[in-house]
């Protein structure tokens, strides 16, 4: 039987040199102590960020027109979430690369109907009011063509919505019950009742904030606040943190791809970034088994700095 050839990037030479004393327990104890002291010192000096969560009440009071416009978009199914697609609904095209479209393959699992979940159901939970009940009935009993016509009329004037005398004004009479529904949802939001209604739809106890977070993400208020904190996607926001604190810096490569084409310009940018990162991650994990890549350290020779004392002794 012939002896297998030595492969320097796979095999390791047998070490026949000297051994030195090593106290593994002492090393571990010192490491814990040092990290503990360093952590406590950093916590005392720099503390940690805690920017208060915004609520729909905050949003609808701070930027009432943005809220009202978003509410109208949710009702007429023209918002970002309404047209998102899987896993929330069938409203939009799935992100894909060629025939690869896992978002579409998996389908709808977290069912969101923006008109029902974000507008009509919360309004129905309010104490009965004749005008509101009539508007809800008018909307729910209308044909889809009628709703389309109301929505088109609303879309034409949406940019001109105002908030005057504590009331949302939608400057058209062709939008059916939309002005009443948008105004009543806005009033509900400004009292804080909508925050509760969106999380209690599944019963008394809840830990699921999918609906209010999706609603918030459809407006511009949340994004504007995030931009002010340099957290936007085009600001390398994935690795940033509110204020001056360090964030998830280890995500630098993920956020890097979002800054350059085609990732930054493609409608399937998220999928391209995640696909790229999955491939790179697989390469990292499987590095020892990939010829060429596993030779890089030997060719870079950084190991000569790490083991300089060993090589000096050998020489």
């Amino acid at each position, binding site marked *: 039987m012939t002896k297998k050839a030595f492969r320097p990037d796979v095999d390791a030479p047998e070490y026949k040199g000297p051994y030195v004393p090593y106290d593994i327990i002492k090393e*571990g104890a010192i490491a814990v102590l040092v990290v503990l002291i360093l952590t406590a010192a*950093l*916590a005392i000096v720099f503390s940690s960020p805690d920017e208060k969560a915004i609520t729909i009440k905050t949003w609808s009071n701070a930027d009432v027109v943005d809220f009202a416009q978003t509410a109208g978009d949710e009702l007429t199914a023209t918002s970002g979430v309404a047209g998102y697609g899987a896993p929330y609904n069938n409203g939009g095209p799935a992100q894909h690369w060629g025939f690869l479209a*896992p*978002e579409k393959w998996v389908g709808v699992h*977290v069912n969101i109907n923006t008109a029902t979940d974000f507008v009509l159901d919360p309004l129905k939970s309010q104490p009965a009011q004749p005008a509101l009940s009539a508007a809800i009935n008018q909307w729910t009993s209308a044909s889809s063509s009628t709703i389309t016509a109301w929505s088109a009329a609303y879309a034409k004037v949406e940019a001109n919505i105002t908030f005057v005398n504590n009331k949302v004004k939608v400057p058209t009479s062709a939008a059916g019950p939309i002005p009443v529904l948008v105004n009543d949802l806005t009033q509900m939001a400004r009292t804080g009742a909508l925050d509760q209604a969106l999380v209690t739809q599944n019963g008394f106890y809840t830990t699921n904030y999918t609906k209010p977070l999706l609603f918030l993400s459809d407006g511009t208020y949340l994004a504007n606040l995030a931009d002010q904190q340099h957290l936007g996607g085009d600001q390398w926001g994935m690795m940033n943190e509110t204020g001056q604190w360090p964030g998830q810096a280890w995500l630098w490569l993920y956020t890097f791809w979002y800054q350059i084409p085609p990732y930054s310009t493609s409608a399937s940018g998220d999928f391209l970034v995640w696909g790229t990162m999955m491939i790179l991650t697989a390469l990292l994990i499987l590095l020892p088994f990939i010829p060429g890549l596993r030779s890089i350290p030997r060719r870079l020779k*950084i190991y000569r700095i790490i083991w300089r004392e060993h*090589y000096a002794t050998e020489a």
Partner: protein
Amino acid sequence: MSNAQIERQWTSRLRRSVVDKLPPDKLLPDTQPAYVASWIYVFGVTTMAALGVVIATGCILALDGPQWWHSSSLGHFVNSMHLWSVEIFFFAMIVHLWGKFSMAAWRGGRSLTWVTGAVTFLASILAGFTGYVSQTNFDSQWIATQAKDGINSTGGGAFFNVLNLGQMLMWHIVLLPIAAIVLTGLHVIMVRVKGVVPPFEDNVEVSA
């Protein structure tokens, strides 16, 4: 029962196998090869020490629930320690990773040691991320609403809903810490079984 029967028992076989592969002087060595003489070796144990502080501070935060730290100065301080130990953990882990890459530390039958280390890194990223979206503040709102798009694009959002606080918190405080601890344990055991990778032989320039 005869000695032969005792030696065939599962327990006896497991003990023999463990002791053969990891005798006490390998598990808790009192000497090491002389080439292990660089500051780069400190970052492995620093990563583990930081993981310990992360877990300890996380356990203290768990005592009074996920919102305690917003209203208590002590809670905020513990949260600050949790944050900074995480930053130290990732810093040390990444330096450790690049150090081991530079040494081609997978050589000599240590491929699985590398693989468990790399997977631990991934589990840690996920643990860090679920922590960020479980903070119940503006940060978690923004990060969750942004991250959903990436995860949804892979189809994963159907099962891993980053907007569901309860699900994220459970992953953060139960599933991912278990994964990180088990993977780290396996990684360390493999290091102890195989030992620290020896230096490249000088002047070896053959094909990989």
